[in-house]
């Protein structure tokens, strides 16, 4: 028991009081204002569909893979979208390996609801042969470092990975057109997924004195705050989902204020994701061009000699 006690992160009484008093003067411990978001950096891996998002100290890695499976019986013409979260013990001393805890399941549900209910990903285009073969898209989110506000970072990682994922092209063949031939990427160019809009999750923290509201709470603020709410909105102003998980009650006007703040932040975050994806796509296209050189390059060094 003692060994486990020795390794957890603790918050002192001094810190709890300080975070609350500082918020009364609208100061947060990392120097941000209450409605300021942390810097987001989005990076991509070599494979299609892998992304790494850093939101301040929080780091999340997203990975998208696809497999051909039989569809669900009640939805024979739709593909399947599933989200798996892994809370690595290196992210936080309280994360245990093995079964996902409450927080992991909640995070998965929020992101899942944001993508599925709002129909952000077009699942009908994933159907190859009705009732027989559809693509099952699997999004794996690995939490690498917990610096607070995992939901937002994981959501951005999932969206970035979905936008850069390419699935193999396949066509029907065989004697009666019932066989599916999956073309390897060298023969036929893999296709991107159809994503209609980007639902962005924005999290808020509520503090007990005089309903103080902050956006994008850090790890320390999460330990002190009295309630949290995550709103998933997109750049068009549609509200995709709202999740308020426990904590104290908030009046209606505070929720409306949160939604308005979220919509304005969502626009800038959507732009950032799209720009980053654009850069990566251009880079990948250039790399593909170099793969089949039609002319040999000239070695400049020979000329100098």
């Amino acid at each position, binding site marked *: 028991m*003692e*060994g486990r*006690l*020795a390794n*957890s992160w*603790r*918050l*002192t*009484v*001094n*810190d*709890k*009081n*300080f975070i609350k*008093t*500082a918020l009364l*003067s609208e*100061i*947060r*411990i*990392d*120097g941000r204002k209450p409605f300021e978001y942390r810097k987001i950096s989005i990076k991509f891996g070599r494979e299609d569909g892998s992304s790494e998002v850093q939101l301040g100290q929080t780091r999340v890695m997203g990975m998208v893979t696809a497999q051909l499976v039989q569809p669900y019986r009640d939805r024979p013409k739709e593909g399947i979208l599933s989200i798996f979260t892994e809370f690595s013990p290196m992210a936080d001393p309280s994360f245990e390996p093995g079964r996902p805890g409450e927080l992991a399941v909640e995070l998965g549900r929020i992101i899942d609801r944001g993508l599925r209910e709002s129909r952000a990903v077009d699942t009908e285009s994933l159907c190859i042969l009705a009732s027989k073969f559809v693509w099952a898209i699997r999004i794996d989110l690995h939490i690498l470092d917990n610096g607070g506000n995992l939901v937002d970072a994981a959501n951005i990682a999932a969206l970035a990975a979905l936008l850069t994922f390419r699935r193999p092209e396949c066509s029907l063949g065989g004697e009666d057109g019932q066989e599916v031939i999956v073309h390897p990427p060298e023969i036929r160019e893999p296709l991107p997924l159809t994503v209609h809009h980007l639902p962005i999750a924005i999290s808020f923290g509520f503090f007990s004195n005089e309903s103080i509201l902050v956006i994008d709470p850090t790890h320390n603020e999460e330990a002190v705050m009295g309630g949290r709410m995550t709103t998933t909105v997109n750049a068009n102003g549609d509200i995709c989902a709202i999740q308020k998980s426990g904590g104290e009650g908030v009046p209606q006007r505070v929720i409306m204020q949160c939604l308005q703040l979220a919509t304005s932040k969502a626009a800038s975050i959507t732009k950032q994701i799209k720009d980053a994806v654009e850069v990566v796509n251009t880079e990948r296209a250039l790399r593909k061009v170099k793969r089949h050189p039609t002319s040999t390059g000239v070695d400049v060094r020979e000329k100098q000699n």
Partner: protein
Amino acid sequence: MENKQSSSPASFVDSTVVPGDVVLDLSSMTSQTIKLGGGLRQDCDAISAMKAGTLRFSKPNKYWIESSQKRYVPCVEDTILGIVVDSKADNFLIDIKGPAMGFLPVLAFEGGTRRNIPKFEVGTLLYLRVVKANFGMNPELSCTDASGKAAEFGPLKDGYMFETSTGLSRKLLSSPTCPVLEALGKKLSFEIAVGLNGRVWVNAASPDTIVVVANAIMNSESLSGAQQIIMVDHLLKNIQ
């Protein structure tokens, strides 16, 4: 092997060593007493490094290895910041960011008797001294200095505590004063307690002073002296 044993100890001082490097050969220095600090181990005549870091030497005869980690390994006579986790009949259990909990005896206070045992709630921050630190045992702590006086040890009220690496704590405590603290001290007034276990506590009259000092110190780890002063000036201009 012959070459290694005949190399002079001066060649390793202030350079990076890794565990296993033989940094000193005692057979060539017969009539001297050498004091070994952290990270060094004696195997008969050879002194070898146990930690990765820089070998340091201070006259007349002290050698030690300096490295910066996030973990803390308790050493005797270190001053540290601990957080109360639990209180038992004889000891308080204190979290000191080390491999094991520290024990603070309930009587280890100035004028402490069984009648006036202090009551600390869970989460109280204390400034403590390490009395005993042996491998495998829980370190023993105290709220008095070696002669039994209180000497600023004990609970810290208000303020804000943040965590750093052990190397940064040592830099903050070094003399002459670390450039970042000097630059901050010229413009702001604040109170600071630095624990060698990688914890720093700051207190000031207004919350934004505390936030500026905390962020300045956290950012100063990888900067050189001049860069630290520039960084502090930049931060202070942004407030005013």
